[in-house]
C-alpha cells in the first residue's frame, strides 16, 4: 500500500470530520431533518473525484456529502445548506439530499437518478464526446426497477454512463443478502454492461483500477458498472443504527482512518488536526450566519419566449 498524497488525505479527512461534525450537531439538537453520513465510504468519493471532469455529470444520492466535498471542496456551502443558513449551495431549499451545483446533482428518491444520468449521457455522447455521466447508487438501490430500465437503454445506445455502486453490505437496516438476489456483477453482465469490482479502499489503487475502464467509457464503449466494496461506519441517518456493537467494531477495525494514521504517522496527525480545525471553524462560521432567505418566488414562466431554441441555462461548474 502506498501512502496517500497530501491532497487525497486532506479530502478524506475533510469529509470524515465534516460528517462527524454533523452527527455532533444533531446530537446537540442544532440540526433538523435528516442526514446520511458517508463515514467509512470517503475513499470512493475521493478516488472518483479526480477521475471526473468538470464537464462530466455526477448524480449523487442521499449519502452524498462526500461526493460533493470531494468535487467542490466547499464545506461551508454544504453546511450552510444543511443548517438552512445563508450561503447554502441550494439556498436552504434542497437540504442534505438535494444538491445542485454545476453538473453535480443529488436527489432523495432511490434509483430515480439513473435514467436521468442516462439522459445526460446521451447529451454528452452527442455534443461533448469524451465526457461521461456518473450515477452513485448503493447496493440496496438495485431493488429499484428504474435502474434496469436505464441500464438497458444505456447499453442499447452505448451511452457514456458509469454506475458507481457503493456496496456497504446494508440498505438502511436491511443486510444485502435480504434485499439482493444474485450479484451486481451478474446484473451488469445481464445487460452487457462492462463491470469492475474494486475491493481496495486505498485511493491511489482504486484510481489505478478504475482509470482504464473509465477511459473506455469516454471512448464510446458504452456503460460501466463499478462496484466498490465499502463500509458504512455510522448510522443510516442520524442515530438509527441497530447493528450489534461487535459488527460495528469489526467494520471500524478495517476503516481507512486508523490504517492511514498508522501508515502516515506524523503527516496524518498534522493533516488530521488541520482538517478537524478547518471543519470546526466552518461550523462556527456557518452557525453564526443568519437563516437562509426564502428564494424569490419563481417567475411563472408559462408564456412562451420568442426564441425557443435559446436555452437560458448552461450548466457549468459555478
Amino acid at each position, binding site marked *: 500500500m502506498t501512502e496517500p498524497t497530501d491532497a487525497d488525505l486532506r479530502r478524506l479527512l475533510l469529509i470524515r470530520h465534516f460528517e462527524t461534525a454533523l452527527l455532533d450537531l444533531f446530537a446537540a439538537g442544532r440540526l433538523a431533518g435528516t442526514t446520511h453520513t458517508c463515514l467509512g465510504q470517503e475513499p470512493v468519493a475521493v478516488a472518483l473525484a479526480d477521475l471526473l471532469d468538470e464537464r462530466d455529470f455526477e448524480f449523487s444520492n442521499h449519502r452524498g456529502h462526500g461526493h460533493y466535498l470531494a468535487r467542490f471542496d466547499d464545506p461551508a456551502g454544504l453546511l450552510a445548506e444543511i443548517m438552512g443558513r445563508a450561503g447554502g*449551495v441550494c439556498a436552504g431549499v434542497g437540504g442534505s439530499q438535494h444538491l*445542485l451545483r454545476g453538473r453535480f446533482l443529488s436527489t432523495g428518491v432511490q434509483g430515480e437518478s439513473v435514467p436521468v444520468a442516462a*439522459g445526460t449521457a446521451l*447529451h454528452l455522447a452527442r455534443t461533448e464526446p469524451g465526457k461521461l455521466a456518473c450515477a452513485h447508487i448503493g447496493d440496496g438501490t438495485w431493488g429499484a426497477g428504474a435502474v434496469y430500465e436505464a441500464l438497458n437503454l444505456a447499453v442499447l445506445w452505448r451511452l457514456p454512463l458509469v454506475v458507481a455502486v457503493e456496496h456497504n453490505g446494508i440498505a438502511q437496516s436491511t443486510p444485502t443478502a435480504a434485499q439482493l438476489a444474485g450479484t451486481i456483477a451478474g446484473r451488469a453482465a445481464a445487460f452487457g454492461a462492462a463491470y469492475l469490482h474494486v475491493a481496495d479502499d486505498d485511493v491511489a489503487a482504486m484510481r489505478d483500477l478504475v482509470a482504464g475502464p473509465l477511459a473506455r467509457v469516454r471512448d464510446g464503449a458504452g456503460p460501466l458498472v463499478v462496484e466498490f466494496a465499502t463500509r458504512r461506519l455510522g448510522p443510516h441517518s442520524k442515530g438509527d443504527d441497530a447493528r450489534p456493537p461487535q459488527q460495528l467494531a469489526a467494520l471500524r477495525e478495517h476503516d481507512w482512518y486508523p490504517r492511514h494514521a498508522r501508515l502516515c504517522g506524523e503527516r496524518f496527525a498534522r493533516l488530521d488536526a488541520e482538517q478537524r480545525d478547518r471543519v470546526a471553524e466552518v461550523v462556527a462560521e456557518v452557525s453564526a450566519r443568519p437563516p437562509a432567505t426564502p428564494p424569490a418566488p*419563481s417567475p411563472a414562466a*408559462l408564456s412562451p*419566449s420568442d426564441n*425557443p431554441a435559446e436555452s437560458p441555462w448552461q450548466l457549468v461548474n459555478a
Partner: protein
Amino acid sequence: MAARQRVAESLNAALATALADDPRLYLLGEDILDPYGGAFKVTRGLSTRFPRQVLGTPISEAGIVGLAGGLALAGDRAIVEIMFGDFATLAFDQVVNFAAKSVTMYGRRVPMPVVLRCPTGGNRGYGPTHSQSLQKHFVGVPSLAVYELTPYHDTTDLLRGILAAGEPAVLFEDKVLYTDWMRRDGAADDLFRYDVVGDWPGVARVRLDDAPPECIVVAPGGVADRALAAMRRLLLESEIVTELHVPARLYPVDLSPVLDGAGRAGRVLVVEDSTAGGTWGAEVAHTLHTELWGRLRRPVRLLHAADSVVPAAPHLERAVLPQDGSIAGAVEEMCHG
C-alpha cells in the same frame, strides 16, 4: 388556401416544425419510428426526416421520462410519447419527484423542458387500461403544467409555447380528436363561430353571433366536439343558446376569459372525461364560485364520466362517458329544471 388538416396531421406538422427549429429537441417513445410511425401514427415520417432526434425506445416509461429529464438538465429538450396516457402512471415518480421538483428544489430556477404527450380517453373500445382520462392526477404539482389538445388552438403555436416555457408539461391528446378536423377561419361548424381570447394559450370561445347564451359550457379539447354537438341540438331542438369555452391549458388554468360570460349567463356546466371525484372541474367550479360569488343563478354543475372503469364493449363504454345527449340533458336541466 391550405388544405384542411386533421388534428393528428396538425400535431405531426407541429412536431416536425419543433424538431426542425431546434436541433437540440428530442422526440422519444415506443414504436414511434418509421415505417410504423407510432401507435396512432402521429409521429409518421418524423424519424425519417429527423433520424438523429427521433428515438424509438424499449417499453420503459419511467426510464424514458427520466432520460428526457436528463436531456433537459443538460440543456436539451425532450418530448416523450407515452403510447397510451394510462401508462404515464408508470412515470409518475419521474414527473412529480424529478422533472417538476427540479425546477425549484435546488433554490434557483432550473429549466426543465420535458413534455409528456399522452393519447387519452375512451370511445374507441380499447378497454379499462387503455381508455382513461388521467388529467386530474397531474393537476396541482408545483412547476408542472397540464395542457390538452383542442381543434381550436393552433397546434404548432401550442407546442412551441409549451417547450419555450421551460417547465415540464403533460399534454393530453384525445384519441378520437386525432381524426377530427382542425377548425380555422373562426368557423366551429356551419352554425357556431369561435375566437381564442385571453393570454397565451388562450381560451377558445365557441358561440353564436349576437345571441346571448343561457349557459356556458367549459370543456377541455377532447370533449369539445361532443359539447358542440350538444349545443347544436340544444339550439335546434330546444332553442337554448349556449357558449363553449375550451382552455388549452388546464393547469394552471386562466379562467379570466370565462368569468365575464359566465357571470352574465349565470349558469356554468363543466364537462370532462375524467371519472368522478377530485376532478379538474371541481377546481374550475371552486374558482368560479369564488370569483362570481352572488352572480351565478345556480351552482356550477360538473358532468364527467361515471365513477367506473371504462368498459371495453362500445355500448357499455358509451354509457359511462359524457356524450352529446348527456351534455344536452344537463344543460336543459340547468336552464329549465
